[in-house]
């Protein structure tokens, strides 16, 4: 199959939405960041010039605009830039978009996608490395989508764009240029279906976004040591596919969760808690978490490296759960 980058696949997903829905439009700059891959968006700008708007640096208002337009029958894909900028529009996302359907008694629909770039991107420092997906997972009413490869990006963008519900979507900076096999044809990837990115029988390793790639590398290292890791990518946190997770843990009896959100109340916490609550009987070892520690992100390279979840740290956690009885 042809190989293209995440950014190209992402743009194909957007293009599909544009073709499929005349009321679909894009509000935001630089959907694929400021690096060289930003150019792929030009295709969208040029093909649909009246359906792309570059807003001022007014995150609160243009997020509210996106939500309000969605309530008025539009489908809006709204790009916020670095995820830390979404804190400027937290009220528009959490207070408004997330609650409108519910508080209106189901009368209002809010088909809006808030897309942002997250993650340790090397040199991003305190304000350009934020991964707030766990904070949004704590806000009911939002779907949460984390593509981890080019193929998923295309299908998940399509599903998010077509969805009738507010969706928060995260792209990891390091994924943007990653190549992968992507079908030519249009397709949608259903929400709430985890993807087993590697089958294994010894340990369940759950990861999202860029951490899926890192986990797959960890699994390779471990395979050489005779440890057979199953890498589960939930793909969407809301809705969350408990079934696949629990089936995997039932098989392996061991769980490691790798994620770039900060440790406390992060994505690793919720996945661990689900299993400790609903699959406790299968567990043969403690549930280990490989997360970003609870420190702001330092700029300096050795400091940033120290707090980055790496394949070595993941492999080490897997070895530890294997050692326990």
């Amino acid at each position, binding site marked *: 199959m042809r190989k293209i980058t995440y950014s190209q696949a992402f743009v194909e997903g957007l293009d599909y939405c544009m073709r499929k829905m005349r*009321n679909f*439009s894009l509000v935001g700059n630089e959907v694929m960041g400021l690096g060289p891959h930003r150019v792929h968006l030009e295709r969208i700008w040029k093909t649909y010039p009246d359906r792309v*708007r570059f*807003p*001022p640096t*007014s995150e*609160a*208002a*243009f*997020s*509210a*605009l*996106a*939500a*309000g*337009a*969605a*309530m*008025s*029958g*539009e489908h*809006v894909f709204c790009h916020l830039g670095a995820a830390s900028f979404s804190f400027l529009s937290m*009220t*528009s996302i959490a*207070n*408004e978009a997330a*609650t*409108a*359907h*519910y*508080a*209106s*008694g*189901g*009368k*209002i*629909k*809010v088909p809006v996608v808030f897309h942002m770039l997250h993650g340790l991107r090397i040199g991003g420092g305190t304000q350009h490395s934020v991964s707030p997906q766990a904070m949004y997972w704590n806000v*009911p*009413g939002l*779907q949460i989508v984390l593509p981890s490869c080019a193929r998923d990006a295309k299908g998940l963008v399509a599903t998010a764009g077509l969805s*009738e*519900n507010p969706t928060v979507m995260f792209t990891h900076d390091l994924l943007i240029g990653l190549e992968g096999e992507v079908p030519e044809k249009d397709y949608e990837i259903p929400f709430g279906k985890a993807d087993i990115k590697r089958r294994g029988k010894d340990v369940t390793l759950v990861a999202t976004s860029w951490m899926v790639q890192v986990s797959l590398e960890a699994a390779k290292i471990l395979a050489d040591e005779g440890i057979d890791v199953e890498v589960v990518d939930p793909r969407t946190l809301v809705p969350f596919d408990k079934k696949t997770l629990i089936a995997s843990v039932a098989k392996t009896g061991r769980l490691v969760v790798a994620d770039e959100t900060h440790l406390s109340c992060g994505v690793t916490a919720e996945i661990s808690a689900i299993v400790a609550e609903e699959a406790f009987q299968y567990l043969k070892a403690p549930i280990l978490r490989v997360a970003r520690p609870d420190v702001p992100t330092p700029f300096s390279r050795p400091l940033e490296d120290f707090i980055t979840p790496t394949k070595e740290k993941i492999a080490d956690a897997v070895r530890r759960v294997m050692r326990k009885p």
Partner: protein
Amino acid sequence: MAAKPGLGKTASLRILERMLVIRRFEESLVEMSGEKLFKSHYHLYIGQEATAAAVVESLRPDDKLTTTHRNHGHVLARGAEPGRAYAEILGRATGLNGGRGGTLHMSDPDRGFLATSSVVGGCIGLALGGAYAQQRRGKGGVSVAFFGDGSLEEGISFESMNIAALWKLPAVFICENNGAGATGSSKGGFPSSLISAPRLAGIAESLAISSKQVDGRDVDAVHAAVSAGVARCRSGKGPVFVECITERWEGSKPMWPELSTGITDVSMAWDAGQVPVKFREWHTHQDPILLFVRKLLRKKLVTREAIVKVDREVRARDATARRFAVSSPMPHGKTALQRVFA
């Protein structure tokens, strides 16, 4: 803005009826609150009815609207069923929003309302989205945001006006400045605007938005300004800002509303002797309903009898609506888990 002919008899009566619907609704509501039929803080529109009633007169069915914590008047003016509005405030299953919103989030999407936010300034950002949708649709629809003077303290209001102006969106910003006479939180009342702008319209003007300041108690003034503004919007010339100034109603000064000026009797418009001395200032100079009635009589557009008749009908419908709400069932607890997603 082109000059418009004044409001004729039919429109005037329609507007008066809207104002009475709102007034009777809220008078009843204070009673229902006293009867502990609902438990939450709430905000009344009494004293501001002229604004909502006149604004909707310029709107089309396909126009969009947003409102705030002080939404009753806007929703009712646009024609929402009072029974379902009461039911909403009482948390009943038959409420406009199934009882999930309550007074702070009451909305009537079937009449063009987007979500009702009680986050100050929230409605302005959402209305901006309504305007964006209207522009994309290209049918000349507008999007109206009703908000208080205090909302201009929130940065999102400024951001939204900027975007509306940049993109020439058909947004109608109706700022209801009820600041005059508000107590302020330091005296134990709800705060009102803390804005260093000598004129609120000056903020909109600094962003090159066409703006106008009017007496918010004066139906004709509001209608003239808003209909000109709406026409401007429909023609693609971009947003307008209308500041409607009212005195803060006495009953809205304390933390919880009080029917401080009593139940309005329309005949007070022509029979000042009836008015208790302590309410006289309000009834003579501020109550927009009595002011409008007096004006209509002066202009000989209607008779006293016609007014009394309209009011009687409004009251009868209000009583029916109230009964409907009070006898409506509560939703089932477990339905709380439904409708998180469409």
